[in-house]
């Protein structure tokens, strides 16, 4: 089964995203900030990371830059999922190594379409 780490400081968003991903046959784990997401990745690298931008302790872009520097050969698919919906943020995310980008609010159709884009469906 494919697995996804959902990283968001909102418990509600994590719950909604996990439910959608589980319906799409993903096993899910959760993290509430970049620090705990890094710890989760070091313990077990997921195939997919759904990543919020604005979080306490370590935000999404800092997490992504750190992640892309470590564990050579382990490149999980990273899909940003954020309210930062402008071209500057999208470009910054892509330059940092994001594979796709979801602009909140999202629904199941959007998550499904983005998973098709990154080859996970």
């Amino acid at each position, binding site marked *: 089964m494919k697995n996804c780490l959902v990283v968001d400081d909102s418990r509600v968003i994590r719950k909604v995203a996990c439910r959608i991903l589980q319906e799409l046959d993903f096993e899910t784990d959760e993290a509430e900030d970049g620090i705990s997401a890094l710890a989760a990745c070091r313990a077990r690298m997921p195939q997919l990371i759904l990543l919020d931008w604005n979080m306490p302790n370590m935000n999404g872009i800092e997490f992504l830059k750190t992640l892309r520097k470590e564990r050579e050969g382990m490149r999980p698919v990273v899909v940003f999922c954020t309210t930062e919906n402008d071209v500057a943020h999208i470009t910054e995310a892509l330059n940092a190594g994001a594979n*796709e980008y979801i602009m909140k609010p999202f629904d199941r159709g959007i998550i499904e379409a983005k998973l098709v*884009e990154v080859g996970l469906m």
Partner: protein
Amino acid sequence: MAPDDFNFLAQLVRRRAGLVLTAPKTNLIEGRLSTVMRRFGFRSVDALVKELRHGRDTLARAVTEAMTTNESSFFRDRAAFEQFRDLVLPHLIEARSDSRRLRIWSAACAAGQEPYSIAMLLDDRKLAANGWSIDLIATDVSAEMVARAEDGVYSHFEVQRGLAIRRLVAHFSQEGGNWRIHENLRRMVTFRQFNLLDSYGWLDDLDVVFCRNVLIYFDQKTKSQVLDKIAEMLMPDGALLLGHAETASGLSNVFLGVDHAPSLYVKGRIAAQRLAAAG
């Protein structure tokens, strides 16, 4: 809705656009009529149909347009676009290397996602920049949809279905919560309101026709007539792309399917074998 009113509506829509309305869809039909009722100030379906029976053309046109299905997304049914990009386009670029001209028709363009998806694939090949003349024609039976398509503005939800984020950033500009297609792609497409039952005289020498997810709404006879008219307008080595739930088999003596490319149809066995071999 009274059975008599339903039959009248069904005949009207069939005559004007070839669309087949069936009784089990009465709720859907009434839902679509509600927008027309609001626009023209009718309080009931009965009153609307009564006025239609008097032959009011603007109302009949609005009702017909309301009955069309306008659901679409960028690169909808990705396989069809891959077949166009990987099988059809390479052949045409080689075959038209002297004339450097391509004529492509998106026959039921809805809000424009299909022709703009085609335009993005053509832009990837830098054809216009290399001196090619591209006629990308997009039509729809609904004037409202044609106007929307021509405007080229899409919601946050629309641009996130089927469109990779890199394409969004490359080809759209943000306008508040919406996204507007860039002018170079918008100018690549010529939009026009057109009913597939009308004369195709102005659509000659087509290289590719996208006629997807529209034949399913027609009866068998109308499907055959539309396919025959497309065949007449299509170049001998041209290609037709249908929706994934549609087929030309049993409806056309001209079009043959291409092995391993279920949406793709060409005129004649040699063309089918050539494209199958290229895949």
